[in-house]
């Protein structure tokens, strides 16, 4: 079974970003930096997304964690507006992520 990692991320932008735009931005970043082949290995999934608090929880393959972090850091705009995505923390389980990063807790 593939080991997974959960990431709590914060989105900063000059305008509100909805979930679709966010997904497009992260997949665009991963594909741009690592190509479609690399992106397919990340196993990246958006677990939840809070449009009001600008927090999201992502899941990826443990082996691709650095790829995902690098790709998220490379995002400079979302929907043609300046933006940044900061990884607040990484955890092996969703439960511990939500315990350690309550600000990113959605449920």
């Amino acid at each position, binding site marked *: 079974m593939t080991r997974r990692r959960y990431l709590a991320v914060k989105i900063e932008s000059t305008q509100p970003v909805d979930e679709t735009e966010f997904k497009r931005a992260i997949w665009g970043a991963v594909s741009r930096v690592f190509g479609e082949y690399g992106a397919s290995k990340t196993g990246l999934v958006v677990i939840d997304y809070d449009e009001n608090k600008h927090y999201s929880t992502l899941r990826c393959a443990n082996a691709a964690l650095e790829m995902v972090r690098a790709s998220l850091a490379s995002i400079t705009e979302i929907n043609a507006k300046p933006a940044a995505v*900061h990884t607040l923390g990484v955890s092996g389980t969703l439960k511990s992520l939500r315990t350690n990063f309550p600000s990113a807790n959605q449920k």
Partner: protein
Amino acid sequence: MKKFLDLHLRVPLDDFDLAERMIKKASTLGYSGVGIPLPTYASDETVSKLRQLCDAVGVDFVTRADLFPKSINELLSQLRRFRRKFEIISVACLSKAVARQAAKDRRVDVVSFPATDFKKRFFDVAEAELAASALASFEVDLFPFLSASSFERVRLLSCLRREVALAEKFQVPVIVSSGATGEFLMRMPRDLAAVCFLFDMPLPRALDALSSYPWTIIKRNRAKLSQKFVAPGIRVVRRGKDCEE
């Protein structure tokens, strides 16, 4: 716990509101210190204002001068004039002659190369050897990587991969900094370290490049700029009557 430092935070000196926001953001992102490049003619008032902004958020302020000499003579002249005014001296090497001189001059802390002018990236074996013997560090700014277009980004990553491997081989310290000009270009230290993964820099090395290496340079230079400094290895420990014979 590591103390991180962004050695190249390019805050606008004509917009103190933005400068303040960027310094606050650096603190929020987890930096303990910021190196702010100042023009060589920067007034004491500007420096003290920046220092106050940094002190207010508990971030160590490091003065830095970025030199862009066109010839060796210009470099030597600038080093004579500005070495004792700034804690960090960085030389942007625009020609091979300047690059060689900067690498072997012990007054130079950091050498950097134009990010997108690939013919002017002179960090080769000779440069690495000279830099290793003179304690100069090789700086990698991540702002060009974030702002470059696709082809430029590919070439930049390719160059950085080769140069970082060379630096590693000759034990030249690599300094990673953001080079950010705005809030949205600032990243957490761990995120910058993750970007270094793209040019095959191991994570522990990348974290050192954002923490221990820059702090080592600053500690060394602050000791040299202190009034107690006499010569390398010699400093005034105490002054007063009890020190006379």
